[in-house]
Each structure stands twice: as C-alpha cells, then as structure tokens.
C-alpha cells in the first residue's frame, strides 16, 4: 500500500513493523514526531523520558530484557546521551536496540550544527542513513536485525530534510510477531562493566566492526548506477537526491551504510569512473573514510562544509569547480535590484506567558550596557536556556545574555557568581528544560552555597517542539494522567528555602518578586506560572486600545506582542490574535490605561 509519509513517520512505522516493543525519547526538532507517531500504535510501550540520557538508559534496560527497542533524539540529544551510548556499545545488547539521531544541518531549530556520523566511528557502532522515507521505513527492519545479529546498538541517522520531508512509501510489511519474549539472562561478564570485564568486551567491539565491514559489502540498500564513466558521485542522505538531480548523466553510488563503509564496493565503483567525488552534507565523513582506503576522491574542496545543501548549491559549486559546464538557463537576474523587505523573525506568540517576565527582566536589568560593553552597577546578567523563551533575545524584549545547551543557565549563573563578577546573574529556563537538565544544576547551587536566582517559566508543557508532556505536566505521551512531579515540591526538596510561585501575567508581582530575590543572599526559585497561549482553550474578550486615550508612547510595543501594531500612529490590537483577560499584560504596561477589554 502506498502512503505519503514523512521520514519520521516512516521511521516509526518501520520500527513498528520490525516489532519494536519499547520506544522512548525526549522531544527535539527534527526528531519529535518519531515518538509521537509510534505512541499512537498499539501493542508497545512508549514514553517521553525526562532527557535523552535517561531515554537511552531505559532503552538499554529494555534491550537487555530481550525486546526490540527504539530511542530517538535530535543531534544534540546524543551529546546528552553520550555516556550510556558508549556504555551500551561496550556491553552490546540482546534485543535489537536502534538509536535514531536526527541532525539539523542549517540549524533550523538548534543551537548548533554537528555531524553525528562521527558518533558511529568513535562509538564503534554501525550507522545506517536513509535517502528518503521509503528507505527510512525499510532500514528500520535492517537496523534491528543487525543489532541482534552483531550484538550491538545501531545508529540510524537522519537529517531535518529527511525527517520532515514527505515522500511516497510502499508499505509492504506487517508487524513482526515471531520475536523474543521479554526475559533477562544473567551475564555479569557482558553487563557489569568493571575493568576486567570491559577489557574483554573491548575486543568484542573490534571483532564486531571487522564482521560488519564484511557484512555491508552486500547490503542491498546501497546502490550503484553506472552511466557516464567520466564522473562518479558517491553520496548519502538527502545529498544523494541533490546529486541525482544535478549530475544527471554521471555514475552514482548511493550509500546507506555510513559506518562502516563498504570498502570493496567503493573500490569497484572508483575503478569504473575517471573522477570520483563525494556529495555529503556537513563534514567530509565519507570523503575521509574513502581517502583512507587509498582512493583519490574530492568533495569538500568545493562543496560547503557548513549548513544544508540543496540542488542549487551543489550545482553552483560543481560549476565553479569545473566539474559541470556553466548552465545554459536564461539569466534569472531581475532588471532592478531586489527590494528590501521587512524580516519576519520568529517571535513569542500573542498571549505568551513568557513575555511579562522577560519584559520585567529587560526593564530591571538592562539599563543601558549594549553589546560589547561592561555591565553597569545595578544591571544584572540573564543566563538563559533552550526553549521558546530564547526568542526573548530579539528586540524589543532583548532580555537575555546567554543560551548554550539544555539546563546550562543555572550552572552559568553560579559560575559568574563564583568568578566574582559584581553583577548578579539570574538563570531563566522553562519547566521542561528544568526537568531535563536543570535539576542537577540547582542541587549544585544549593550544595555549593550559591545565591543564584532561578526563574522557571512554567507554561505546563514542552512548547517549542509542539506541546509534549514532561514529568511536571502529569500527562503521559498517550495523553493519560500519570504521577505529576510538582516543581515547587521538587525545588523545596532540593533545599531551596525561598520559593515563590507568581502569576506569569502579573507584571507587578513578577517585578517585586525579582527585586526581593535579587537582594536575598541565599538561592531562590521563582516559578512564573501561566499556560502556553497555544494551549489556552478559553480566551477572554479581546482587548482594545482607546485611540482617544493613546498618547503614542509605544510602551505596549515593547512587549513584542504580535497582536499589537500601529494604525495612524496609535496602537491597535488584532482581535483575532488577542487572548484578552487570559493575558492582559499590555493593559498593565499602558501608562494611560487606554487598553481594556473590548465592549463590542
């Protein structure tokens, strides 16, 4: 049956048909929909884990228990899960264990760009990578088989342009049923990695890679297409599609086994063609592996190493390098220069519960020191984190000083304090990010007697990735009620004595609480609580501006609310976007009290 599936949906369906029994993940673009899709299927256990490290540890346990297990995450998630990743590579597995890493070339929604193909090599773990949804679906079956046959976790790498691209899939399998029943076989030599055991396993890892090198030579999803022998193109992932589009007449070798690579197949291909190039996104991973075989090959000397590729980039690069003739297409250059158009930056939504807190942070802590300037007395530093609230870095809010990686805000704030920086640092992070990696940072503050103030922006969901549950929500991935981990109880348990819950839409309360905590010389936590505007079911009547009262001071525009704009120099509110009394922050900002609930 033909179905139009995104790469993520195809990965989920492929895993389902391969008989996966346990699936676990922490949401992260572009990987989120894998677990969301699989959680809708029957006959398996799916969960949102608190973070990727825990997800993989759960996955490890399930695979030790003999069942097929899927753990999915975004590229930086594998950094978080690196410890169990290396550990499970050492122990190997009984049930098939597939770890999906979704890389984000071009950083569409990430704090960094990294090529996770390196993880396969450094972890001594086989890696597969699809070039479209069909292969994503098919490769999942192979991945589980390889995992069990070679006693190894398998990495399946995907990228944004595969994860989120829909292509036609011939769904030709049914769910596998003849699989091992759950059960644990005692085997300390395999599972207890004391040095004496780990040294033995170390040999098993190397022997495994040797066997895999032979195995991938005949892997059916690698494909050689011999056409014009003057040029041979080796490619993987979505770059294969660009290569086929651009080098129409050339010979092609598509690789889906990324590590280890099929050396003899590549040698045969190289012998068939005059010139060999590699088209791959990000690092010259295949190129270097191929060069290590003693084969002459080029790639990154003309293909960009940074960002996403597309057919146009590949074509221009190939023309520039003299590999392709200049195109005979008519010139597309317009007669007049392109007009300057206003940018449309991502921004916090109308009614967003983060706005009021970030507005207050801006007002209290950013009294003038611009970029590159030392902070003045009385200003403070806002260390921030990964989530929607990071959008508060853009004007007009412009209220953040750092954003690095999940949970880093708290450690950074303590580091600034311990370094002796005279200005106080306030850490700001979301509820889901706090659960993911903020808890340990906060314990560290308490233990090391910092006086950090941490603001948890609690919108009751993992909003940026599309509203997934986390322990603080008390709702499971399947939408069922589960034990809720209460933020205030948790932080009190850690040893924070000054814990305040404020209404995320109450400017005065937020301001007075922040001021009080700044003067406090013990650590404090402020929980600014208010629902994500995209989840609000009952909005109030929209607010409106009394044009006669508006003095065009534009204080309301400093909120950056997308519902507020100008008409004839006066502020106006888009009734369709405004959440009304469910937010009401603009009315608190207006010095003229010109904003109120619409009486229409």
């Amino acid at each position: 049956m033909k179905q139009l599936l995104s790469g993520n949906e195809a990965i989920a369906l492929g895993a389902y048909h391969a008989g996966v029994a346990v699936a676990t993940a922490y949401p992260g673009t572009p990987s989120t929909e894998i677990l969301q899709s699989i959680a809708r299927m029957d006959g398996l256990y799916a969960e949102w884990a608190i973070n990727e490290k825990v997800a993989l540890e759960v996955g490890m346990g399930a695979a030790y228990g003999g069942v097929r297990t899927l753990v999915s995450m975004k590229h930086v998630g594998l950094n978080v899960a690196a410890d169990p990743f290396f550990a499970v590579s050492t122990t190997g597995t009984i049930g098939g264990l597939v770890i999906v890493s979704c890389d984000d070339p071009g950083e569409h929604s990430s704090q960094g760009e990294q090529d996770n193909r390196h993880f396969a090599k450094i972890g001594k773990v086989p890696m597969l990578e699809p070039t479209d949804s069909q292969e994503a679906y098919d490769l999942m079956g192979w991945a589980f088989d390889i995992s069990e046959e070679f006693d190894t976790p398998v990495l399946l790498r995907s990228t944004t342009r595969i994860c989120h691209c829909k292509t036609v899939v011939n769904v030709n399998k049914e769910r596998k049923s003849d699989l091992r029943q759950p059960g644990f076989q005692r085997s300390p030599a395999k599972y207890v990695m004391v040095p004496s055991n780990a040294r033995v396993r170390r040999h098993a890892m190397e022997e495994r890679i040797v066997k895999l090198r032979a195995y991938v030579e005949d892997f059916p999803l690698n494909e050689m297409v011999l056409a014009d022998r003057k040029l041979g193109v080796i490619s993987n992932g979505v770059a294969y599609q660009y290569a086929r589009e651009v080098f129409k007449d050339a010979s092609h070798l598509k690789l889906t086994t990324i590590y280890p690579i099929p050396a003899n197949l590549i040698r045969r291909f190289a012998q068939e063609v005059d010139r060999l190039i590699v088209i791959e996104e990000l690092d010259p991973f295949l190129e270097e592996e191929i060069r290590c075989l003693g084969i002459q090959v080029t790639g990154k000397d003309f293909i960009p190493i940074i960002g996403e590729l597309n057919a146009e980039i590949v074509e221009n690069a190939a023309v520039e390098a003299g590999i392709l003739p200049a195109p005979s297409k008519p010139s597309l250059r317009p007669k007049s220069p392109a007009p300057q158009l206003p940018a449309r930056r991502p921004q916090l939504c109308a009614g967003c519960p983060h706005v009021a807190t970030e507005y207050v942070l801006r007002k209290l802590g950013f009294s003038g020191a611009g970029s590159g300037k030392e902070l003045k007395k009385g200003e403070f530093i806002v260390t921030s984190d990964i989530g929607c609230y990071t959008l508060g870095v853009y004007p007009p809010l412009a209220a953040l000083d750092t954003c690095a990686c999940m949970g880093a805000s708290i450690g950074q704030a303590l580091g600034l304090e311990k370094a002796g920086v005279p200005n106080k640092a306030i850490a700001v992070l979301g509820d889901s990010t706090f659960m993911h990696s903020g808890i340990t940072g906060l314990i560290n503050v308490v233990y090391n007697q910092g006086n950090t103030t941490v603001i948890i922006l609690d919108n009751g969901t993992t909003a940026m990735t599309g509203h997934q549950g986390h322990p603080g929500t008390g709702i499971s991935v399947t939408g069922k009620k589960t034990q809720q981990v209460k933020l205030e109880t948790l932080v009190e348990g850690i040893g924070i004595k000054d814990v305040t819950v404020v209404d995320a839409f109450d400017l005065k309360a937020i301001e007075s609480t922040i001021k009080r905590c700044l003067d406090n010389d013990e650590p404090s936590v402020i929980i600014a609580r208010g629902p994500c505007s995209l989840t609000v079911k009952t909005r109030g009547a929209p607010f409106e501006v009394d044009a006669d009262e508006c003095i065009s001071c534009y204080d309301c525009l400093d909120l950056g609310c997308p519902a507020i704009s100008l008409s004839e120099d006066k502020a106006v509110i888009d009734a369709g976007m405004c959440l009304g009394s469910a937010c009401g922050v603009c009315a608190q900002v207006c010095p003229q009290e010109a904003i109120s609930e619409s009486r229409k």
Partner: protein
Amino acid sequence: MNDVNVLMVGVGGHGVILASDGMAEIGMNNGYDVKKTDSLGMAQRGGSVVSHVRWGKHVYSPMIEKGEVDFLLGFEQLEAARWASYLRPGGVAIVADVVVIPISAIDGKIPYPSWDEIKVTLAEYTDQIYLIPATRIAEEVGNPRAVNMVMLGFLSAFLALKPEAWTDTMRLRLPPKFRDSSIEAFIKGADEAKTMISVKGP
C-alpha cells in the same frame, strides 16, 4: 504527465502546511511521484512558512531550485514578494489578499510594501500575477480558515487533473465539521480562476 513545482509561502497558522500536505497526497493518488518539504522549526512561532511540493515522474530533490517554481502560492503578500525570485520566467504567482505585518515593519526602518510594490517585485519574474479575494471567498462559505482551500482551488484551474481528482482526496482528509465548506471554498477558488483567466487571458 508534466512535472509540477509549487512553492507555498505564508506565515504560521494560515494552513500552508495543510494545503501542501493535501496537494502532495493528491499528486500521489493520481499517479505522480511526489515529494514535499517545509521550512519550519522556529518558524512556527510567527516566522515565515515555506512548503515545496513537487509532482513528477520521478522526483529527486524535495526542494525546488530558484527559478524553477511553476506556481508560487502566496498565502500572505509580503511572503509572496520575498520568494518571488523562485519563480521560473513566466511562472504563475497566485497571491491571497492577506496581510500580516511583522513586528520589524512596525518598529523598524523598512515599511510593509504596498500591493503595487509587491506586484513590481513579482513582475520581475512573470506577468502572470493574480491577487485573489481569498479572504472574502472563505468568509462567503462560512469558513474563514479555508483561505488555503481557495488557493488550492485557484491553482487547480491551471493543472490537468479534474476537480474530482482533488476533491476525492480532500473529502478523505478533511474533518467532517469543515468538509463541505472547505470543498465549496475549493470550487469557488477554481471558479474565480476561470473568471480571472478569461478576463486576463491565459
């Protein structure tokens, strides 16, 4: 079976993704190989949304190259101008009467362009430019969110598939509550195209 490259552009919440999903599925159900991809990520928080839909005998790249777009569907006017350079010479620009002014145009130095300015930008690439009363039509059918269906309907008038080839798939996809009004919006969009083309000439 000609290849068809459609670029749909707009802002979050205007049904661009639903429209491009639907269009891809319609292509598949009518014998095409199809690919579709979106630029999303943080864009879902008020930024631009761009969807590439490709129908063909065999489609390799999911993204359409600059200068290769047959139909540019602007669900918002500024976004249509922003992506004008993706049109192939003589491609068709179909733009909805929707304006969403970004914050940067409110407090910044670059104002939101007028329709006349947007038209000049599009005219650098094509003289086939249609500004369609999508909002009005969507309101007429009692489903203000059906602007995307009006757009698809308008587009359908340029393509070889019969109306049923579109609506059959839509009927399966649409939630019952919006099914009839959405199909009506689609048909009215197609009718609007026939009227405008006959006035303007193909």
